[in-house]
């Protein structure tokens, strides 16, 4: 018989279950683990440590306390464990992680917000991402944060923005939940006049009617674009004239080209997910078990004597391991 667990061990086990909950299911897992633990103190400790981690890694979307919009819980917008910045409304919300609600909101301080120069880029990207999200994700939400160089005031320095996209579908009554999460880091490199884009996309789905089947798909990609206006080669005289002026893309143009890059990669990724699904029946899944035997007819159970010969052959060939 196993030895009695220490409180610490119980808490660790509960945390493991909570953090590994599928998309949208941590509250159901919490209810079950609480009744398995039969120790409310251990449960409370585990919940208070796990919910914030889960909420941030799942990029959950919460309604603002005044119901005027939504806010994402992410590590990029975290001011302290319970306070998250919503750059779109320039508000800071207080989050009750275990209840998964916003309780209060206040205007952000100046030092919590980026400079006017950065805000121009951030805001333009936010506006473009809203357009893109409304086209591509029926129930998606995005937010753009400045993660480095937020106090840069003019051209000449590097800075970095992050676009976070989160789309979730919870339909427990149909035994199905899922989420799409993308995080796009966008580094503005002033000396190279380049923008480097790197994305991480993660898609999860869980179907659990009389069973438990889960999809877990991840992909990373990189891309870049230049900050300057590009000029076609056939206008070389004009282009050399213009290049000497080195006009930098406006924040709006920049946002359009960045969202195009993101749209392109996300569309390609969706296509590759669909390809993975359509490869299942005839190639991938076949490597686990065929739909029909190699003979393409059901196994002749009524006539297994015929195998006495086959058996000897397979033995000799060493196939019948």
């Amino acid at each position, binding site marked *: 018989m196993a030895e009695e667990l220490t409180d610490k061990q119980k808490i660790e086990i509960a945390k493991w279950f909570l953090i590994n909950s599928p998309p949208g299911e941590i509250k159901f*897992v919490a209810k079950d683990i609480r009744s398995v633990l039969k120790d409310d103190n251990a449960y409370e400790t585990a919940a208070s440590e796990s919910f914030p981690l889960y909420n941030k890694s799942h990029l959950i979307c919460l309604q603002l306390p005044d119901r005027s919009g939504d806010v994402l819980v992410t590590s990029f917008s975290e001011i302290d464990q319970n306070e998250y910045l919503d750059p779109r409304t320039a508000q800071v919300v207080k989050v009750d992680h275990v209840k998964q609600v916003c309780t209060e909101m206040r205007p952000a301080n100046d030092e919590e917000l980026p400079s006017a120069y950065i805000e121009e880029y951030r805001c333009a990207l936010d506006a473009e991402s809203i357009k893109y999200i409304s086209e591509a994700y029926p129930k998606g939400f995005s937010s753009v944060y400045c993660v480095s160089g937020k106090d840069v005031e003019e051209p000449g320095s590097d800075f970095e923005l992050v676009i976070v996209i989160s789309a979730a579908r919870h339909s427990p009554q149909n035994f199905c939940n899922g989420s799409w999460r993308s995080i796009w880091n966008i580094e503005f490199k002033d000396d190279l006049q380049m923008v480097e884009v790197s994305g991480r996309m993660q898609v999860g789905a869980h179907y659990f009617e009389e069973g438990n089947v889960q999809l877990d798909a991840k992909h990373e990609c990189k891309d870049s674009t230049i900050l300057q206006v590009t000029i076609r080669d056939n206008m070389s005289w004009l282009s050399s004239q213009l290049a000497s002026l080195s006009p930098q893309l406006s924040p709006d143009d920049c946002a359009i080209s960045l969202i195009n890059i993101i749209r392109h990669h996300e569309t390609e990724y969706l296509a590759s997910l669909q390809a993975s699904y359509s490869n299942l029946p005839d190639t*991938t899944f076949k490597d686990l078990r065929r739909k029909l035997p190699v003979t393409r007819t059901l196994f002749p159970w009524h006539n297994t004597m015929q195998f006495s010969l086959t058996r000897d052959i397979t033995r000799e060939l060493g196939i019948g391991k």
Partner: protein
Amino acid sequence: MEAAMGLMRRIPPKLTETALSALLSLLPDHSSDLLSQVDQPLQVLCDVECGKEFILCEYNRDADSYRSPWSNKYHPPLEDGLHPSADLRKLEIEANDVFAIYRDQYYEGGISSVYMWEDENEGFVGCFLIKKDGSKSGHGRRGNLQEGAWDAIHVIEVGPEEEGIAHYCLTSTVMLSMTTKDESSGTFNLSGSIRRQMSMDLSVAEGHLCNMGRMIEELEGKLRNSLDQVYFGKTKEMVCTLRPPSELLQMRLPDSRDV
């Protein structure tokens, strides 16, 4: 116990083993219930006598040793380990031979083991196990899978024969995980487990093995089919709900460019 089963229904199938051992340590009083209701990935040992691998489960275990279906001996050796009666052992040997061919025809590789034992009501029970590593480093013929595991457990209870008819009750479980991985599309993993039951009254004229085999073949086929069509299908549907495919958008684009 209900809450524990609730957790097992939600935890990612890849983490089943860890989840089960965590639950066993939290609920030591329910250990036998947990072990009988939660299936875990099958383990394999090598029969030192004939150099063939066999599958471990609760049904060939005695103390800390497991009986090999090939040599009928316990590993590690056990003085007075349980063995099936001589008649049942004969059927067990035949079942192992035939099931290995069945396995090879459907799986093109893998390992199988069949165990039989008498039950208390004059019938017997057979446990048919298959384990397949379908990864490209394992037995994956097409080399598409970075990782691919299939475990099938079929437990079939056979009632005593009455007027040439016997009652068969089969419980089948399939657990699987498959991962593809490449530069352009990242990692794609589907994993899961489902369990179904089937009961039949059949004439024993053609023998028990024939009846058991047909039922197993039918139910295993159904499980594979519903994983493929229903369960994977539902997760695909979910992906398309989250981000609908852009076929419509792409069809519209050329038009708008022409204008």
